[in-house]
């Protein structure tokens, strides 16, 4: 069925006189020329506007800030990869954090705990976008897809050096096409939200209720 359908559809699309595109304005380059300070300012402004928490830290202080955030939220546990550069640093000082959990088995073997027993997840990011206040997340075997989705709190570290002006700039500068797309790539711009009831914003619909960004 599918093969006949395919042939029929493609034949119909080839039949008519081919439409001309007629337009050539497909330019995508970044419109802005913001310096680092401006990028950080805009990123923070946009994130805060959608109720994300943003903490400005340094390579010396970021672990302290993560620890303080966990304490302030009263987290019982924190899902952290033991394999990533950042995750290793947390695991090395595990006593300063809530019980550290690891996502080291396929989801099928611990789905119940992930869905109902994990308070928060900590991940790195692939970069950020200043214009829209966005984290670029590319989940991997070390930091799987559901980490930034299922737990009620998501704590993410963004290195300022990877904060781009626009999405278009990030795609180009990081060479997404050349590198090949991963199974899943995400832009995350705040905690989960909906305005489906009376246009009133409500947070934490299906994804995290809280998003905490640690800028380093």
């Amino acid at each position: 069925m599918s093969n006949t359908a395919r042939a029929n559809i493609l034949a119909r699309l080839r039949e008519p006189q081919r439409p001309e595109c007629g337009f050539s304005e497909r330019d995508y380059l970044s419109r802005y020329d913001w310096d680092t300070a401006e990028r950080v300012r805009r990123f923070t402004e946009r994130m805060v506007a959608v109720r994300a928490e943003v903490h400005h830290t340094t390579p010396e202080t970021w672990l302290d800030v993560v620890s303080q955030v966990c304490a302030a939220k009263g987290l019982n546990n924190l899902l952290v990869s033991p394999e990533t550069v950042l995750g290793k640093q947390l695991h090395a000082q595990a006593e300063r954090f809530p019980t550290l959990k690891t996502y080291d088995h396929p989801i099928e073997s611990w789905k119940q705990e992930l869905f109902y027993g994990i308070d928060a997840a900590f991940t790195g990011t692939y970069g950020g976008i200043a214009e829209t206040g966005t984290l670029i997340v590319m989940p991997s075997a070390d930091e799987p897809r559901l980490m930034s989705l299922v737990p009620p709190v998501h704590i993410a570290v963004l290195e300022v050096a990877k904060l781009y002006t626009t999405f278009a700039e990030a795609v180009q500068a990081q060479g997404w096409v050349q590198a090949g797309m991963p199974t899943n790539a995400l832009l995350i711009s705040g905690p989960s939200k909906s305005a489906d009831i009376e246009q009133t914003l409500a947070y934490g619909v299906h994804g995290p209720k809280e998003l905490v960004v640690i800028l380093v």
Partner: protein
Amino acid sequence: MSSEFRNTVRANLAKPEVRANFYRAMDGLMTRRLDQFPDKAELERLRTQSMAIRANALSKLPELLETLEANLTRNGIQVHWAETTDQANQIVLSILQKHNAKSIIKGKSMVSEEMGLNHFLEALGIEALESDLGEFIIQLDHEAPSHIIMPAIHKNRIQIAKLFHEKFPDIPYTEDVDELTQTARRILRDKFYAAPVGLSGVNFMVAETGTLCLVENEGNGRMSTTAPSVHIAVTGIEKVVESLSDVPPLLSILTRSATGQPITTYFNMISGPRKPGEKDGPEEVHLVLLDNGRSNIYSDPELLATLRCIRCGACINHCPVYVRIGGHSYGTVYPGPIGSILEPQKAGLDVHGELAQASTLCGACSEVCPVRIPIPSILNRLRYDGVRRDTANTNTVGSGKRRTLSEAATWKTWAWAATHPTIYHAGSTLATRFKGMLPTNLGAWTTVRSAPKLAESTLHQQAKNLGVDHE
């Protein structure tokens, strides 16, 4: 004149609560969109760019679909083609049967509405549960979406609170939006946990990389495409773009035009099923490409612009007809201006051709359209196709089927009189002479307006009196 459409419109116009719900929502959406485009010149540049991206994709549609299929297949995504909604439903069913699945959880998908997928599956005893908050609400009430972006926009908080209380009597009654949302979260989380198969729509397909892109705020789209072990995406063949660099401008204009957001919470780019070593994500990803009349629209150089649509809903939000009659009056999957050009072309002018008449041609829709679809021109074209006699010269389904003898005769008589000056002058002079005999009760028109009055003398006569020389 009476028709199902007119009757539904009349019934919906008589519901002040629903009308108030639409007015409040559309006013808010128009304001928020405007706030996103403070620079008018920049907006116009962006619209031209977005139109160019979509027009470019359509100009290479068959090639891009082949490239897309090759890249998706290389990435491990299984591609299925369906000429009709029936075929698309059968493809979904065969995937479910292969996995012995008795339920699916759905992210938001208008193409699945187009397929009537929920009814199709439920008739076979398979549960199809909507997980988008708005879709969840209307599914509880057995309703169809009244808007393509905000499906439950016709309901207010109180109505939703009562509905939740009726369906979930164990949960205390509340009108608090946060609490209602948390109720839905708890119920649906259990469903996400257990669902064997997730189904979603697609906003953009990237041919260059073999990527499916989903735009959403809630996270239900990510859940539906990540937690179950099988993900089925359904979409129309027109949703493809050529390259990844086409995506950022389209995403930006889509979210700003739709809900006045600079970006949505999640932009989800899926390029494959779970790879060896990865610990979550579906083991299988399927894409169902639906034609359902799109290739026919594609065959007409003028109507083709219909397929540029990126489903932002801005035309709906700005339509003076939609805000009054509401989304359910249209009786179609896609309401508002885009629905009034898309649905008659898909179902045929004999079925939904009346929708092309239900417009004042004010042009608000085309003024806000992010891809510059000339909706009023297409409405006019469909009106013409509906009554034209040379139906061999157009591919529009149902061409000529709206032609009636009385209307045709009226226009023919008019054309004859208007091209015969003696007859025309005699007729118009007679009309002014006997204007007192014109009826003052003109049915619906005069229930809220006074009847039109003819002048004392014809325009020709007045011009002559003023000394205008018509030669």
